[in-house]
């Protein structure tokens, strides 16, 4: 049967599903697009916690955490290629309650990051304008609504736009790096004067631990690539390729960003500014670089919010499709092939948080949900390899040195939780209490609506030991 709305809309056989139109470049754009804003603001607060050297140490150690995340995610997602990403992984490997929690981690992490991006964009424009009485709310509203509209209209255009604006923002970091003669100290850069043995670690090693909380910003969100699993043409190839390429890109960007900023600003200022790269552009004395970094800050915030809307909507959509939430949320737009109701449902929530929350609160909730999700991933991969050992099912990618990345990931998550507890202990406890209560609701009420057999869709053999 064919239902026809207009010439471009045809629904074959009464089925409407997401479209497989994406390639590895879109996966890269989704992952790096979400993350790159962290180079333009956020990572530098690590310098406030532990000094400039601490910001560099966590850049590499948290880089190790995220490399583990990217490797583990690539292996599991190249096998469980479904919208919802880590939610679908948890459902098949751990169980429904874990999956429900993981989906909520995803929705919270991405929605709060989207809110933070919109606030950052609004504040950046207001700071540039310097007009008394100018409010950031109009810019926040435009960011969230325009990007939601873009997501509503189709994933291909959404991620094409993300690819272009992410590439421009990334190239601006490269241009800044080469414009300050990085091979010559003393001409523009003064690293040896600004970072000395006396001030490199002003609070000692506890400062390095505390800096973990903000070191997360260097890479927060790279795991979002997996949300595109149901829309990429070849998940087993595109997802590992796009995710690993994204991680390499980000490691390079993080190193360049730290080097330029730490060589231009004292750690006391670097640790409190909201615009480290824009400030670095100003400090070079070049109006061209200053304006380029201003525009790049806006584009990075836009790319991040755009990717977050895409990912949060797909996680919410997946919950509806499995009846973990009302099936109403699992509707797919018959023309644009997007989870349009989930996009529209999350839109006013993001707007409300963006108007009432401040940047620190929003990003702390995002980071907390993200780290909870990474902790799950370390356990998930151990269970995955145990239940379906190598050779029992086809994997698009097999990550090396198992179980070392899982152990490293788990240990670094524990350290990060401790660091968050030092800075935002009450928020951490409130968040854990929230997830505990919502789990009770799911277990005792909502799970009765779930079609228990239908939710497991992967054509795998029975797991070992079952």
């Amino acid at each position, binding site marked *: 049967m064919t239902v026809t*709305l207009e010439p471009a809309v045809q629904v074959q056989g*009464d089925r409407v599903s997401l479209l497989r139109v994406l390639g590895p470049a879109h996966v890269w754009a989704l992952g790096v697009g979400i993350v790159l804003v962290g180079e333009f603001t956020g990572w530098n607060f690590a310098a406030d916690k532990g000094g400039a050297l601490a910001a560099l140490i966590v850049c590499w150690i948290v880089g190790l955490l995220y490399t583990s995340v990217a490797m583990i995610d690539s292996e599991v997602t190249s096998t469980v290629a*479904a919208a919802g990403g880590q939610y679908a992984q948890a459902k098949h490997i751990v169980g429904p309650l874990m999956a429900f929690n993981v989906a909520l981690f995803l929705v919270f992490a991405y929605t709060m990051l989207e809110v933070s991006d919109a606030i950052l964009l609004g504040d950046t424009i207001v700071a540039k304008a310097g007009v008394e009485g100018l409010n950031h709310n109009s810019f926040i509203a435009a960011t969230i609504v*325009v990007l939601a509209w873009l997501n509503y209209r189709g994933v291909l255009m959404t991620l094409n736009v993300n690819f272009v604006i992410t590439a421009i923002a990334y190239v601006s970091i490269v241009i800044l790096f080469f414009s300050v003669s990085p091979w010559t100290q003393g001409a523009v850069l003064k690293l040896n004067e600004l970072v000395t043995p006396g001030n490199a670690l002003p609070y000692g090693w506890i400062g390095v631990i505390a800096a973990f909380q903000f070191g997360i910003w260097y890479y927060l969100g790279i795991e979002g690539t997996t949300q595109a699993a149901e829309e990429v043409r070849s998940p087993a190839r595109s997802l590992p390729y796009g995710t690993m390429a994204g991680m390499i890109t980000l490691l390079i960007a993080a190193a360049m960003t730290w080097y330029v900023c730490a060589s231009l600003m004292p750690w006391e200022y670097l640790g409190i500014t909201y615009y480290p790269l824009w400030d670095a552009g100003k400090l070079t004395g070049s109006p061209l670089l200053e304006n380029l970094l201003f525009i790049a800050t806006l584009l990075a915030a836009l790319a991040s919010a755009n990717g977050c809307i895409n990912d949060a909507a797909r996680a919410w959509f997946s919950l509806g499709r499995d009846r973990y939430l009302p099936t109403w949320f699992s509707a797919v737009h*018959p023309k644009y092939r997007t989870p*349009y109701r989930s996009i529209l449902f999350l839109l006013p929530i993001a707007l409300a948080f963006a108007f009432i929350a401040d940047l620190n609160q929003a990003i702390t909730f995002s980071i907390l949900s993200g780290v909870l999700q990474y902790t799950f991933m370390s356990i998930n991969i151990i269970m995955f390899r145990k239940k379906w050992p190598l050779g029992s099912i*086809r994997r698009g990618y097999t990550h090396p040195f198992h179980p070392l990345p899982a152990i490293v990931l788990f240990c670094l998550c524990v350290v990060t939780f401790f660091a968050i507890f030092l800075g935002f202990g009450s928020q951490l406890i409130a968040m854990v209490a929230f997830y505990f209560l919502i789990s009770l609701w799911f277990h005792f009420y909502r799970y009765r609506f779930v079609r228990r057999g239908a939710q497991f*869709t992967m054509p795998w053999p029975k797991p070992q030991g079952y």
Partner: protein
Amino acid sequence: MWVALSYACWGISIVLALWMLYDWFKIDTTFSEDVLTSSREGELEAVSEKHRI
């Protein structure tokens, strides 16, 4: 200029939000709920991946 840009942002937001609401209404009244919620996880994988090693 910045104040004008601020008003333009409000205008664009309202227009796009209204367009999405209109399209949502149009789609929901044109198609049945069964069609709109017919997406199933893993359908393509079930066809293309046999997992026989």
